[in-house]
């Protein structure tokens, strides 16, 4: 079945540094979604990418969808303590949404 992998699993950064998480799917995706889960909270939808090579920005967050629609990345510029949490990518597989293992971001003030 479809597998969605994310790296790194953990990332510690100093506040102000940049952060990137990468997502790779074993199959071509019709779309990819990104979610953020704050510590002790539930996943919350951030964005969806649909087109090959698509790039979307939300303030300091930049999301990319690969040309082959099998990989994606999330880049955060100048991290802040409010960025702390786990970032998940997810891709549809039939009637299910398969989540990557997530990247846990920790930010040192």
């Amino acid at each position: 079945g479809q597998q969605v992998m994310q790296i790194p699993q953990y990332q510690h950064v100093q506040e102000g540094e940049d952060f990137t998480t990468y997502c790779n799917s074993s199959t071509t995706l019709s779309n990819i979604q990104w979610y953020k889960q704050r510590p002790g909270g539930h996943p919350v939808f951030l964005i969806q990418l649909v087109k090959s090579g698509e790039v979307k920005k939300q303030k300091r967050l930049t999301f990319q969808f690969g040309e082959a629609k099998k990989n994606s990345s999330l880049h955060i510029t100048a991290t802040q303590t409010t960025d702390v949490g786990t970032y998940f990518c997810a891709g549809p597989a039939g009637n299910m949404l398969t989540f990557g293992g997530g990247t846990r971001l920790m930010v040192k003030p």
Partner: protein
Amino acid sequence: NAGVTQTPKFRILKIGQSMTLQCTQDMNHNYMYWYRQDPGMGLKLIYYSVGAGITDKGEVPNGYNVSRSTTEDFPLRLELAAPSQTSVYFCASSYSIRTGNTIYFGEGSWLTVV
């Protein structure tokens, strides 16, 4: 709109006990899901439903059962609880899985089996 509501929020079970996690959504979504998340890990799909009367297994269905008698409700039943079922359980819903539709999660149910 309340969105996706799960109860209870916290529960301690003894080994061998049974319980039902309740989930209801008021967004008239067709799709509903149950995920579990072990500490520090990702989300694993237990069961899902694409509409009332239709349910299907996800990645980790063993030890669980579900039903979907109405569009709004999707309870998860744990039979003969085991320590391996200690986890956070998230119910979620979406209109569909097609492009443009996102998943909305409940706040989670923390379950400990001792």
